[in-house]
């Protein structure tokens, strides 16, 4: 694992994981499906409620969880776990 990112948890995902923020060592490039699998490995409870209804945000851009695209991550990048939105 050659890159260290900062993972942020919000709303339901913070309650399920029990943390708001943590550092994670990951490979880069990595697709979002594999990144999500890493997070589930850290916090299996995320799976129970969020699977299928969650996206990630990498450097403030939404990323769907799939194996379509490889993300290039850099040291210090923010990766947010984004449950369904309810603003407004």
């Amino acid at each position, binding site marked *: 694992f050659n890159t260290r990112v900062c993972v942020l948890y919000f709303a*339901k995902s913070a309650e399920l994981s029990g943390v708001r923020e943590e550092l994670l060592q990951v490979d880069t490039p990595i697709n979002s499906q594999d990144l999500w699998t890493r997070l589930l490995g850290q916090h299996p409870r995320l799976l129970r*409620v969020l699977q299928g*209804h969650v*996206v990630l*945000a990498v450097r403030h851009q939404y990323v769907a969880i799939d194996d379509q695209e490889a993300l290039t991550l850099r040291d210090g990048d923010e990766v947010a776990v984004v449950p369904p*939105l*309810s*603003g*407004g």
Partner: protein
Amino acid sequence: MSSQSPPLGASKKGRDIFKLSHHRLSVEDVVAAVGSASCGAISLFIGTTREDQSESGKVIGLEYEAYEPMVQSELAELCRRLRARWPDLAHICVHHRLGWVRVGEASVVAAVSSPHRHDGQRALVCLLDGLKANVPVWKKEVYEDRKASWKENAECAWASCHGNHDAQTMIGQ
């Protein structure tokens, strides 16, 4: 130090003003933020917290949280899209609550000013749709029995109730 000129096509007077606040919102402040001598219309929206009923009893309040840097970037992008579609818009202002909000209080106040009302009214609807679909803010309802549940906007593409315009669902229990 060099000064930059505004990009071609950008309204040199159009302001986009966003604020996240832990305190009571002021409708007057939002209206003042979009005021302009060239505008014949200010279109205004106030989102208030309803006293909903559930199996857990009445809603006693809401808790809001946000991914603040991304709220800024998403609202900025939303305003760019609005201005591209309605070039005559003057100013856009959104104030949104964070933290604990009691039932009956305003959770969001949004206003758009424009020379004539049609553009402003349409842009305001689009602004609210975009806010609900894309801006990373989350709302948790808290009930009389102290249970709580996170809400989901139907406008959000990854919500379980996506596409059902009148529905908000609760995730997890």
